[in-house]
């Protein structure tokens, strides 16, 4: 039970972090679109690189959550069902 409570807090924190990174990516996309319309092409590549890096962070966080979740399920299979 203790582990699950810790996991819930951890999971909520990770979720907030993922959501924040997605909002930053959304801002990068709008900035890139604005730059494309203004023909400021030099902005587009850094924006893409930053967005891909943020996606990498998100994927790593999700992977951590999935592994953590599987570990908790293994440890408490009866209580969960």
């Amino acid at each position, binding site marked *: 039970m203790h582990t699950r409570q810790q996991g819930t807090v951890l*999971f*909520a924190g990770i979720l907030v972090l993922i959501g924040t990174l997605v909002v930053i990516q959304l801002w990068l996309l709008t900035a890139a679109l604005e730059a494309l319309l203004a023909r400021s092409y030099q902005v587009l590549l850094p924006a893409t690189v930053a967005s891909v890096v943020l996606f990498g962070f998100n994927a790593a966080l999700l992977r951590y959550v999935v592994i953590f979740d599987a570990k908790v399920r293994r440890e408490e299979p009866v209580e969960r069902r």
Partner: protein
Amino acid sequence: MGDDSQIEARWREDFPVRWDADHYLTRRELAKFLTLGSGILACATGALAIAARESPREEYPALLIPSATQLLPGTSLLFRYPTVQDPCILIKTGSGELKAYSQVCTHLSCAVRYDAEGNTIACPCHRGFFAVEDGRPTGGPPTRGLPRVVLQARADGIYAIGMEP
């Protein structure tokens, strides 16, 4: 029958009786959904970069602007460049300098006008303002400057020879 039991099991997983299990599942799926969205956003930003790289560079013709030499200081005239679908405005400032910009407001594409009294380019739709000197936005909703028309003085008149963002 096997499919029905699987669907029911999935349904019970999505809508569990226990409150904490419901929250736990919802958060995990939201995390997956957000990460999927994150990937889509990264791809979309990359697609914009590719679109910019693949777009062909425009070549602009040289076009004589009729009666540009007869323009009085503090007045403007309209012309179309580089095609007949592209309205532009030629301005002769009080100091006698010629400036030309696209007449399409970068906010919502209204036609901008030259305001000689305020020495500014104004968009009447949403009160957007641009500097006459370089077309940068100076007030109102527009965030991007007006594209500038490159001018060239030749023996037979003033020519538009290109566009700059």
